[in-house]
């Protein structure tokens, strides 16, 4: 022990070594393996990987129209889910942080967290039931004389927005809690009306936290393939292309190439986010 005591650097190394190793090998190593696999090719009949360097997978990815369509659709869905979540989460978080009494606040916090304890599949299948013929959504639409959207992109966006809502509420709530009440009172004392206070005090404070929440909703949607299989009708997202290429086509190199798309999109998104300073609020 005493040797360790005398060598602080060795001590630090032993302390940080294992977690860094885990991060490096298991996490970044897996990402590197993914990228390397994308540069290999595969025998179309037996499905065995052939270790020859080629850019074929990326060529297919960029030259075949359907993959561009799917990538854009996926990004669109992710953006839409993020916007909807931000719009829905903000009033809820504001009410929780600034209006509700402590008892009610605790109750609301539990209520927001509660859905996270239920299985993803249960929630997705619940929405499948609601969007089915004669389900809650379609009967509500029929009651006002409209046709239900049924299974499709609308159902996918609604389901994903529901699934990821807690990940948006919590950061915004945490951000608003940090905002001192005295600031709001000062604004009122200086003659600011509610809307003015909201626009000039609350919103600027909360933006980095909305961005922090959007990292969750955006990235979770980019990688999702289950919800769209359950409520998405005939639609497919990037995750489905990856899944189909691993599971049914047995084409690991191409699946790896497709999987780099959300990684690149996410890296770009994080680079933009870093400028807003939202990384510090995570």
């Amino acid at each position, binding site marked *: 022990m005493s040797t360790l005591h005398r060598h602080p650097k060795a001590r630090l190394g032993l302390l940080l070594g294992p977690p860094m190793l885990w991060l490096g090998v298991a996490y970044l190593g897996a990402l590197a393996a993914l990228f390397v696999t994308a540069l290999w090719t595969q025998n179309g*009949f037996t499905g*065995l990987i052939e270790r020859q360097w080629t850019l074929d997978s990326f060529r297919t990815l960029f030259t075949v129209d359907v993959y561009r369509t799917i990538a854009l659709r996926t990004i669109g869905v992710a953006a839409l889910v993020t916007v909807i979540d931000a719009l829905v989460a903000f009033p809820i978080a504001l009410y929780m942080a600034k209006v509700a009494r402590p008892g009610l606040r605790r109750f609301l916090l539990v209520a927001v967290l509660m859905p996270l304890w239920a299985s993803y599949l249960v929630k997705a299948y619940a929405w499948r039931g609601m969007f089915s013929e004669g389900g809650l959504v379609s009967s509500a639409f029929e009651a006002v004389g409209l046709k239900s959207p049924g*299974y499709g992109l609308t159902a996918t966006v609604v389901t994903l927005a529901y699934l990821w809502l807690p990940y948006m509420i919590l950061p915004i709530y945490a951000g608003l809690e940090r905002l001192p009440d005295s600031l709001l009172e000062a604004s009122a004392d200086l003659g600011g009306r509610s809307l003015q206070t909201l626009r000039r005090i609350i919103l600027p404070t909360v933006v980095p936290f909305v961005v922090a929440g959007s990292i969750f909703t955006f990235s979770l949607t980019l990688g999702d393939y289950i919800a769209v299989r359950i409520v998405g009708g*005939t639609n497919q997202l990037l995750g489905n292309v990856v899944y189909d290429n691993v599971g049914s086509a047995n084409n690991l190199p191409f699946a790896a190439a497709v999987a780099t798309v959300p990684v690149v999109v996410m890296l770009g998104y994080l680079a933009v986010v870093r400028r807003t300073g939202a990384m510090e609020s995570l």
Partner: protein
Amino acid sequence: MKKLSMAASLAALALLAACGTSGGSGGSADQAAGTGGFTPPNLKKLDKLGTGEGKLSVLAWPGYAEDGSNDPKVDWVTPFEKQTGCQVTVKTFGTSDEAVTLMKTGQYDVVSASGDASLRLIAGGQVEPVNTDLIPNYADIYPFLKNRPWNSVQGQMYGVPHGYGANLLMWRTDKVKPAPTSWGAVFDPNSPYKGAVTAYDSPIYIADAAMYLMATKPDLGIKNPYALDDKQFNAAVDLLKSQKTLISEYWSDYLKEVQAFTSGNSVIGTTWQVIANVASGEKVPVQVTVPTEGVTGWSDTWMVSATSKNKNCAYLWMNHIISPEANAAVAEYFGESPANGKACAKTADKNHCATYHAGDAAYAEKIWYWTTPIEQCLDGRTDVKCTDYSKWTQAWTQIKG
């Protein structure tokens, strides 16, 4: 490193095999795949049966290896364990492609492979030839199932036939009138059931479109829905792209299809008999038919992994699963025709074999069994290259858009 180079040489071998010998003019269209398609890796079959190793790992379609955990009355695994002392673990898969992926891990001793998986497993060296002399019940298998292109290569069996069935057309009798007799109901752009049609979510479904074109557009000259040259293939893909506007959703999980028919989101589409049985059991008014254009279907084979350490148990299992009792139980539970004619006397429903046309060679010939499309045309043509399965997979993504 040794492992790596072995895998590489295996891959090279398979590639060589795939592009090496070309079809030749040998035999009928059906035979081309088995005889002229490729040369499989050189693996030895078992020459003598020893005592069981005490355990067996089974990779099977859902419903093919039931141990009573889904339904206490449905159990043909436990009697096998008691008889042979081989403790069975079962893993199920949902598509043929998943089966091929799982077999590559080498963790499973036996697999129930459909025709669109079996040839790939043989060419990839994942399964070895089977010595049918060591399987007493093999003698009772229907002759028309033996030595077929999807379960044998150059006259050597690579497994034992398990059973066969057809992909049927199912519809809700209260929503679809009159009763359809043609696949046109799911392919015609003017179908009155637009938005409530369902289709199987797998590249192999392209064959269903090709089969429909075979009957409706004879000038395309399609002779076998699994042997499509570029022009024929594009026609089938175009048909499926136009079909997409009719589709409510694609299915690969059979319970999802049952639910879609129950709620009415789907009212017509392709199905398996077992799905119709489950739906009828839940009082959903559905009916199935064999449309005039014919049907695609499956004919399954139990195969032994080349890397299996429990080959004796594997042979005992293959003998058990095609025994009259077990074969009857599986066929009835899954809803297909048994491979062993003696099974017909053992089914609980005495009409089972009649319902599924078991042993009716003429009916069985009418089914286009799932086969892996390869570059060498399966219909015997040598003047053109056919589209292979990787093209089918890519096209399937494009069809779904």
